[in-house]
């Protein structure tokens, strides 16, 4: 019986030993504590890398859908809203049909909103903590510069999606501005005015311009360097109708990048090594958009992998091209619709995607000059492109010249994500004539229609205490429908 007693005491002792407190400390295996990230510049660089990834990552807008890939998705949404492309099935088709994708209660507005603000919060942390990191000053400067460029770009992109264009809506509500990392106690910020938003955009981009002056991004086409920042500044000033500045910045970039040769133009727009590409993204075997990139959407049957065979060109748009224009790479299929061969995936189905190239800069310069009345110089720039592509030279002047430049823009840049932003910026109506009607796309919308502008997601209206939940002018929400009349 004694031995049992011993066992009993031993057992009690063992119970005591088990109860050490470390036992209950467990940590995730694939996440790190926020406090550990910003100790060295290497950590800050990792946060920056994460932000770059976010800009093209699946589910970056929280929609968890195959049309939620950050920038490439935004570009496709923009193209779907224009007059040039017909979406016959595939993805983004509700944008094409104007079936209400701008509504506050549809995932799309939330996806766009969330994508940008997650990026902004990540960049805010980098900007706030980079100075306290251990590391070389030059590294810190470059990391900070890139983060600022990202933030500036994000606010610019938001401003274009969630409000009428700057030139007529400066005093309209902008988007909430955050410049500090979000904490548990951060409150929602008010919309302010669009002027406030653009002030932030310019301040960030100008700071970035300074910090990135000596930054070499190597072969990372997706990174913000001085040229990308200058290109974006050109776009920003263009939207603001500050023509001189817009032209100046575009020209600076144009000096550094050659135009796309015809051979390059005809080779499928899938190679990031094309010398005219200023900004874009690669797809790799590990990081790609699977069968949901633009290459899988276009109907031309050249892709080796799955294709939705969904995007075609409207016949009215094809009619804008001369047949001997080298960009006339169209085929009339099934006696019905024009297929375009502009976008063709590479052999691995992992083609790169362009976000900015020198032709846009050239057209920005031409437009800026034309808007300033410097028509001869404007024409010279325009002819440079028209000659190259074997298009007829525009000889018009005044407003017609500007229109010609805008048409050249569509012809050169279609499918690259400019359609919606150009409609808004130029206060154009949406006139879908011709064969759009056969594909449910014969929508007509007046200039400055609110249907072009996304409503703020319901969750923002409900949970941001600084916003008044009501339709403008009674509240902070954008109208869904109707036409905006500048005050």
């Amino acid at each position, binding site marked *: 019986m004694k031995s049992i007693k011993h*066992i*009993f005491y031993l*057992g009690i002792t063992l*119970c005591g030993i*088990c*109860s050490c407190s470390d*036992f*209950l400390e*467990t*940590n*995730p*295996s*694939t*996440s*790190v*504590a*926020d*406090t550990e*990230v910003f100790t060295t510049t290497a950590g800050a*660089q990792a*946060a*920056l*890398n*994460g932000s*770059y*990834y976010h800009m093209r990552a699946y589910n970056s807008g*929280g929609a968890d859908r195959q049309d939620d890939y950050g920038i490439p998705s935004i570009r496709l949404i923009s193209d779907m809203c224009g007059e040039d492309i017909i979406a016959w*099935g595939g993805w983004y088709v509700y944008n094409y*049909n104007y*079936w209400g994708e701008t509504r*506050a209660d549809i995932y799309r507005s939330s996806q766009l*909103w*969330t994508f940008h*603000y*997650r990026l902004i*919060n990540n960049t805010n*942390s980098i900007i706030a903590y980079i100075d306290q990191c251990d590391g070389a000053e030059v590294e810190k400067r470059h990391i900070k510069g890139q983060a600022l460029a990202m933030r500036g770009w994000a606010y610019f992109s938001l401003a274009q999606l969630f409000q009428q264009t700057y030139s007529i809506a400066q005093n309209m509500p902008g988007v909430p501005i955050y410049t500090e990392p*979000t904490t*548990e106690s951060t409150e*929602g*910020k008010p919309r302010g005015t669009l002027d406030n938003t653009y002030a932030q955009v310019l301040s960030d981009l100008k700071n970035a311009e300074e910090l990135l002056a000596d930054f070499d991004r190597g072969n*990372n086409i997706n990174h913000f360097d001085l040229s990308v920042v200058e290109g974006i500044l050109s776009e920003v000033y263009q939207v603001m109708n500050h023509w001189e500045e817009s032209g100046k910045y575009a020209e600076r970039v144009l000096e550094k990048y050659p135009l796309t040769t015809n051979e390059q133009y005809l080779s499928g727009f899938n190679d990031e090594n094309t010398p005219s590409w200023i900004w874009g993204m*690669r797809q790799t*075997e590990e990081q790609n958009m699977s*069968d949901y990139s633009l290459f899988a959407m276009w109907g031309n049957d050249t892709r*080796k*992998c*799955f294709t*939705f065979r969904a995007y075609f060109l409207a016949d009215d748009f094809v009619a804008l091209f001369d047949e001997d224009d080298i960009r006339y790479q169209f085929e009339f299929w*099934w006696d*019905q619709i024009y297929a375009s061969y502009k976008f063709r995936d590479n052999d691995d*189905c992992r083609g790169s995607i362009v976000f900015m190239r020198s032709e846009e800069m050239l057209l920005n310069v031409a437009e800026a000059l034309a808007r300033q009345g410097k028509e001869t110089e404007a024409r010279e720039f325009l002819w440079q492109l028209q000659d190259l592509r074997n298009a007829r030279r525009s000889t018009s002047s005044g407003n017609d010249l500007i229109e010609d430049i805008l048409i050249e823009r569509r012809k050169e840049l279609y499918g690259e994500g400019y359609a919606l932003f150009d409609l808004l910026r130029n206060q154009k109506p949406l006139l879908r004539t011709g064969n759009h009607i056969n594909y*449910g796309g014969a929508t007509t919308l007046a200039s400055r229609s609110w249907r072009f502008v996304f409503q703020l*997601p*319901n*969750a923002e209206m*409900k*949970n*941001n205490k600084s916003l008044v939940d009501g339709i403008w002018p009674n509240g902070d929400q954008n109208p*869904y429908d109707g036409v905006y009349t500048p005050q």
Partner: protein
Amino acid sequence: MNKQFFFILSFMMCIPVLSAQNREVTGVVTSSDDEQPLIGVTVIDKQTQRGTVTNENGEFSLSLPERSQQLLVSYLGYKTREVTITGNQTLRIALEPDVVAIDEVMVIAYGTGKKSTFTGSATVIKSESIEKIRTSNVTQALQGQSSGVQVINSSGQPGDNSSILIRGIGSVNASSSPLYVVDGVAYDGYLNQINSADVESITILKDASATALYGSRAANGVIMIITKKGVSEKGQINFRSTFGFSSLAVDLPRALSSDEFVGLTWLAMKNGRMDAGISDAEASAYATDNLVNELKINPYNTNKPVGLDGLIDPNAQLLFSGDWRGELLKSRMRQEYTLDISGKTQRSDYFVSGGYVSDKGIFTAQQFERFTTRANLNYQPRAWLQTGTNTSLSHSIRKIWIDSSTIWFLRTISPTYPVYEWDYEKGDYKLDSNGNRIYDYGDNRQTWIAWNPLADAAYNPSPATTDNVSSRSYIELTFLPGLKFRTNFSVDFYLYSYDGYTNGEYGYAAGFGGEAYKENYRNMSYTINNLLTYNKTFANHHLNVLAGQEAYTMKQKYLMASKRGFPFGGLTEIGSASEMNSMDSYQDNYRLLSWLSRIEYDYADKYYISGSFRTDGTSRFHPDTRWGNFWSIGASWRISNEEFLKVYPWIDNLKLKASYGAVGNDDLRIGNASNYYAYQGLYATGMNDYNNAGVTISRLPNKSLKWESNIQTNIGVDFALFNKLEGGVEWFNRASKDLLFPMPLAPSTGFGSIDRNIGNVKNYGIEFELHYQAVNRKDLKWTIDLNGTSYKNIITKLPQEEMNSGYFKWREGESRYNFWGVEYAGVNPETGNDQFWKNIYDTSSGEKVLTGRELTENLNELTSDDQKKYLGDALPKLFGGFTNTLSYKGIDFSLLIYYSLGGKLYDSDYSQMMSYRTGYSMHPDMLKAWTSENTSAQFPRISTAYANTMGSYSSKFLFDNTFVRLRNITLGYTLPKAISGKIQVNSLRLFVQSDNPLTFGKAVGRGTDPEQSISGQTNNRFPVTQSFSFGLQLNL
């Protein structure tokens, strides 16, 4: 009084003298209903507590002192009798079956208890009831068997879990699932790895008094699965086999024929044109001319199969028709064999079993195959030492898992699209070099392109294998009579491995030469506990004390890799493929440290009180908040043992009980996955910029996060009357507080929400169980069981006044599953379009006043919150089961009905088929859609343009979901002993059964199975199946 005293005193003084004079008492015990001898009956001398059990012939013999006068004769399932020893002749004792079984022993948390005295709320479901249901997952057998328990068998895939809720939904954003405990310890394995034939009983613990000892994991109730042990000295050999076939319990909506689908497509195109302002004639011409383009394939022998009148051209002949349903859904076999051998000796008992199930479901190539073995052993090497182990191994293979898109496909694919490639020139299906048809991957489909589920099943075998080891071992030391120390050591281990494969010859992966995708989850968890119990009876007092300590640790490891590009066909392993596609791995650790205790006391078998207390520390929370205390108190009063009720002999039992306590819930979730580190501020890794490692912000720090707690009250009455009717009624209230809510943040902060313990929810209701022995004669027995539960779910506190959650709006004082949305107002007979009610508000006074409502056809006007209206609650008002069991001589018959009354279902499975979308087939109801000739139609005009309401949520597709399901019907025949004895078997039973043969309810008419999710939503689930089986049960 004095007399008694002297009586006892004289006894005590006589002991040494009398004990020397022993006599032999012999007897035979039989059952009163059939006079058969009873084996293993316990016979105890009341005076000396000496006892024995009866042998194979029901005989016993005891050597007892002369003073012994009374024997206690007890046997499970029979009423205990006190028998007076008279003379020297053999006692003939007939035991009466205890129909109401009030003295049954049941397994409770960390021990056992008597049903008659238990202060908490629990239901025991015995193996006989579990065995009746044909299932490859034991949880599915629980439906309709216990009050307070809502079991939703929403999946017809073999081996799938059912979702189980005990007394309502105790949480909003954390888990609402009960804790599963197998043989006393929380179970971490797969539920479908448990062989139902090994299960002795399942006890469902429902209130705090019953569950508080499981502390931080007990808030949603506990389901205790107890496996069998050897009980027969003679030894038992049981063999059981069943085989049968399945089909859908509720048929899918009838598939439109090609003619119907093509006709509707034509109409949609025509109407679409007219919506764009084109004239009738032009629109008809357009539709006729372009129909084939819209279809993308022409199944007819003419270019314009539909004429200008919208009718199929009489000369048009259908060339082919894709019989998708017939090819994909087939009635396939299920077979199951189980064998067990069990027995006991004086010092040991054993139960050894093996089982095999092959359940082929109803979908092509689908299969769930499982092999199980189990050994439950107990041994007592010394009087003070007992040890034992329950160990089971299982291995299962699941051939195909059908996801919702396959079901969506099945519902919306038109026979216009062939299953196999069609050769127009030949006028027949294309054949490959072996003369077989070639699967059509949908190049000519408008949707579901590059896919053929039938081909996938044939070409892409992707089995998932699960290996499960589950072991429960113990050593128990008895120091003094009543004082025991027990150490339990339990292990649950599983390895889930998925061998994904996509062939490189056909379909989606043909562009890159195929893909291998391998995935492994390895889970290992241990529980060690040390328990000290003390059991003491003195005079009328009885005391039972438990104190213990427990540690739990779980480690889950995940590993995934995928490569693409096989050199040629027939290869499936990663090693053979050329290009790295993706890789991932992670691990999770979860630990608990606990102290627990319980005291039970009763007086004179009339008054019982119990109290329990547990302290848990969990790794899931910050050190400052990780310790929580959970406790309960319970009391019961057995009124039937009071003198004043003893005059009514028809009252077998009457008990009042009440309990109160607090239990916890630490299972915070992200989506459906457990969140083990919710309090930490984190950056997620793996957010790489190509080859440069990257991180992004994933969580805000949240140190104050803590348990959800659940305050539970239970008041009930149990009764047993006339030795015929037994039952209980209970009222419960579960007040969940500190519920984890994602407190919404403005998304512009970069976060949609932050988790906070800020909500309260209450579930209260009433439940009853009745068991009625309608007839209990020797040859004829008939029992009726009925149970029902009605509960309400009320949100009592929210982080803000109201919150939107999908189709629901959460408001204080209302149910969490209250549908809110725009109210549908029927079809406008003039235009054929859907109409909705639009609220009109007046804001001129500065306040928003609802002044009226008007009809609108434009849902886009109704996007704001103030256009929503309460549309109904998803939760049923009353649900339960009704069982009849009948036996007559060798024939037995039983049926189980499950009913669920009230509750709404938002039927998106139906709505997805109720408008025109290019390439998708429709519901037959669309044939009755509005036309200019049929303006009173219930369904709106079909149009390519009028698709703006599609997918938009309103009350249009919200339906009442009352349903009744005949869950099981069984007919069996046991061979008479006279015959079975001749072939050397104890008993042989043959049976036929059908599971889910009948379902009644509105949903059936729509082709939707009424058993969907608790939240009243459909999601193209694999529907529940019905089955018809034969079987035999053999006892040697």
